[in-house]
C-alpha cells in the first residue's frame, strides 16, 4: 500500500505541518488580538510567492526577489489592517467576528481571481543544488531537512519573541484581557498592526519554505487558508503553542492519507478526522473555549 518508507513520510508530514503551523500561528495571533478570522491569510502566502516568481522570471537575483515578496506580503497585510478592516473595529462581539470574516473572505476571492487571471503561470519552485543526503541508511532530500529546519527555527523565534520581548508580552496581554492591557498602557492600535505584520512575515516565509519542497501555484491560496484554519480549530484558536502541535499532527496525518488513498480523497478523510476530533475534544488539543 505504501510505496515510500514510513519514516520519510513522517518527515514529509512534519515539514508540511510546520509550514501550516507558520500560517496558522499568524491566523491565531490575528484572531486573538484583532478578533478577525483572516480568510485572506492564505492569499498572503501566494502574494509573496507570486511576486518572487515573477521577479525571478525577469531575471532578478534570488535574495532580492524573496525580499520583494516578503515586502509585498507585509504591505498587503498592513493595508488590510489599516484600510480594509477599518469598518469593523467599531463593532462588538459576534457582529464584528462575522463581518471581519466576510470582508476578508471577499478580499480573498478578489485577490484569488486577480492573481489567477493575471499570473496564471507564476509557479514558485526554489530548487537546491544538492538533491539528497544519506543518513543512517536512509536517503533524505536536503530540501526537506532545510525547510523543516527553517520552519522550526522561525517557530522557535516566534515563541521566544512572544515569551521574552516586551512587544510579545504586550501582544499576549492584549489577547488575554484587552481592557486590562489598555489600563496598563498598551496601545491596541499599534500592536494590532504589529500582529498583522508578523502574520504577513510568517505567511510569506511559509510560502518560501513550501517552495523549497514543492511547487506553489497561484491558485492554492484558499487551500492553504482552509488547511491553516483547520489547524487553528484543532489547536484551539488563541493558543499559538497548540497551533504548532496541531500543525504537526495534521501535517503527518494528511501526508499519510495522501500516500494511502490519494490527494483528492485525503481531503475528505482529513475533514472526517477533524470532525471526529472536534466531537471528542471540542476545544482543541490544548486550546481554550472560543
Amino acid at each position, binding site marked *: 500500500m505504501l510505496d515510500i518508507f514510513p519514516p520519510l513520510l513522517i518527515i514529509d508530514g512534519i515539514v508540511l505541518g510546520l509550514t501550516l503551523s507558520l500560517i496558522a500561528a499568524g491566523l491565531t495571533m490575528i484572531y486573538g488580538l484583532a478578533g478577525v*478570522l483572516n*480568510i485572506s491569510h492564505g492569499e498572503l502566502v501566494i502574494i509573496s510567492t507570486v511576486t518572487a516568481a515573477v521577479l525571478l522570471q525577469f531575471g532578478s537575483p534570488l535574495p532580492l526577489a524573496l525580499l520583494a515578496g516578503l515586502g509585498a506580503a507585509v504591505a498587503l497585510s498592513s493595508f488590510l489592517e489599516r484600510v*480594509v478592516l477599518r*469598518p469593523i473595529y467599531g463593532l462588538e462581539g*459576534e457582529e464584528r*467576528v*462575522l*463581518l471581519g*470574516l*466576510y*470582508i476578508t*473572505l*471577499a*478580499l*480573498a*476571492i*478578489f*485577490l*484569488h*481571481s*486577480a492573481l*489567477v*487571471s493575471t499570473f496564471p503561470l507564476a509557479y514558485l519552485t526554489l530548487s537546491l543544488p544538492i538533491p539528497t543526503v544519506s543518513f543512517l541508511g536512509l536517503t533524505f532530500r536536503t530540501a526537506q531537512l532545510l525547510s523543516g529546519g527553517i520552519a522550526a527555527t522561525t517557530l522557535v523565534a516566534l515563541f521566544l519573541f512572544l515569551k521574552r520581548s516586551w512587544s510579545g508580552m504586550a501582544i499576549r496581554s492584549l489577547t488575554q484581557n484587552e481592557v486590562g492591557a489598555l489600563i496598563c498602557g498598551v496601545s491596541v492600535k499599534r500592536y494590532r498592526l504589529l500582529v498583522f505584520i508578523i502574520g504577513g512575515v510568517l505567511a510569506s516565509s511559509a510560502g518560501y519554505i513550501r517552495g523549497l519542497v514543492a511547487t506553489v501555484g497561484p491558485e492554492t491560496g*484558499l*487551500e492553504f487558508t*482552509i488547511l491553516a*484554519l*483547520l489547524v*487553528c*480549530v484543532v489547536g484551539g484558536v488563541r493558543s499559538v503553542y497548540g497551533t504548532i502541535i496541531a500543525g504537526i499532527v495534521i501535517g503527518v496525518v494528511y501526508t499519510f492519507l495522501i500516500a494511502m488513498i*490519494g*490527494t*483528492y*480523497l485525503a*481531503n*475528505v478523510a482529513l*475533514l472526517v478526522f*477533524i*470532525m471526529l476530533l*472536534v*466531537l471528542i475534544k*471540542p476545544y482543541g488539543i490544548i486550546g481554550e473555549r*472560543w
Partner: protein
Amino acid sequence: MTAQIRITRRNQLIAFITLCTVYIFLPLLFINTPYVVFIMTQMLFFTIFAYSFNFLFGFTRQLFLCIGAFAGIGAYITGILLRESIVGVVESVILSTLTVGFIGWFVSYLSVRRRLVVIFTGIFTLAITLAFNNLVIGLVDITGGETGFRVRLVSLGLLDSLPLYVRFYYLAAATLLTTAFISFYLLSYTKIGYAFRCIIDDEVSSGLIGIDVAKIKMITAVLASGLLGYAGALYGLFSQLITPSYYGFLSLDIPVQLIVILGGRATLLGPFIGSAIISILNEALKFLGPLTQVLYGLILVLLLAFFRNGIVDFVKRRIVPWFF
C-alpha cells in the same frame, strides 16, 4: 401597534400576490427568445439558493459557506442515479433532498450542540466546499472529473408540452413561490416565526424567555439544506450537464451571498430583488470574462463595508418615511 403590524402583513400579502403574477406571466413575453427564459430560470434557481442561505445565515446566523457544495451533492446524486438508471427521477430527487438535509443537520448539530461560535461553522463548511471539489475531481470514474457528465432530459409530466426552458422555469418558480409562501406563513402566523424574529434580534435573550434556540437552528439547517439538495438536483436536470465548475465556490456561493447581502439579510423579499439585480448585472458584465469574479469580490467588500443591511432595509428606513 397591532394595527400597524396587520397593515404590513396585508402589504406583504399584496406584494406576494403581485410577485406571483409577475413570475407566472413574465416568461410568456419572452417565449420566442429561449435565451432570456434560460437566464430567468437560472435567476430563479439562484433565488432559491439565496433563500436557503438567507434562512441559514440571515435568520439563524449559521454561516454555511457550502451552498454550492450542498447543491452540487444534490445534483450529483440525482445525476448519477439517473445515469445508471438505478431509480426514477422522483426517487432520486427525494434521495438528494434527504441526503443533503442530513448533512446540513449534522453540521448544524456539531456547531450548535457543541456550542461553537459562528465562525466555526464558517470554517467547517468552507472545508466541506474544498472536500466536495476534491472528491468530485478525484473520483473520475463516477463523477466524470473536471468535465462532468451529461444528464438525459427527463419528462416533467404535464409541463412537457411547453418549450424546454419554460418547463423548468415553471418548476423552479413553483418551488420558489411555495418556499416563499411557506416562509411567509411560518414567520407571520406561527410560534416558529416568533422564535425566528426573536433570534434575529438577540440570541441570548430569546434563550432566556424559553425559546429553544438550538432546536430552531437545527430545524432551519435541515429544511434549508434539504431545499438546497432539491433545488440543486433540479438545477442539474435543468442544465443537463453536471460539472464541478457549476457548483464551485466562486460560481455559486459568491453570487448567492451577493444576492442575500444586496437584497437584505433576514428579509423575505430581499433575495427576489437581489437576484434580479445580480442577473442583470451578470449579463451586462459578461464581456469581462473571468474579471467578473474580481469585480464580485470587490462589490462584496464594498457592500459589507457600507451597505450592510441591504436594499429592503434601505427602502424601509430611508424611502418609505418620505411618503408617510
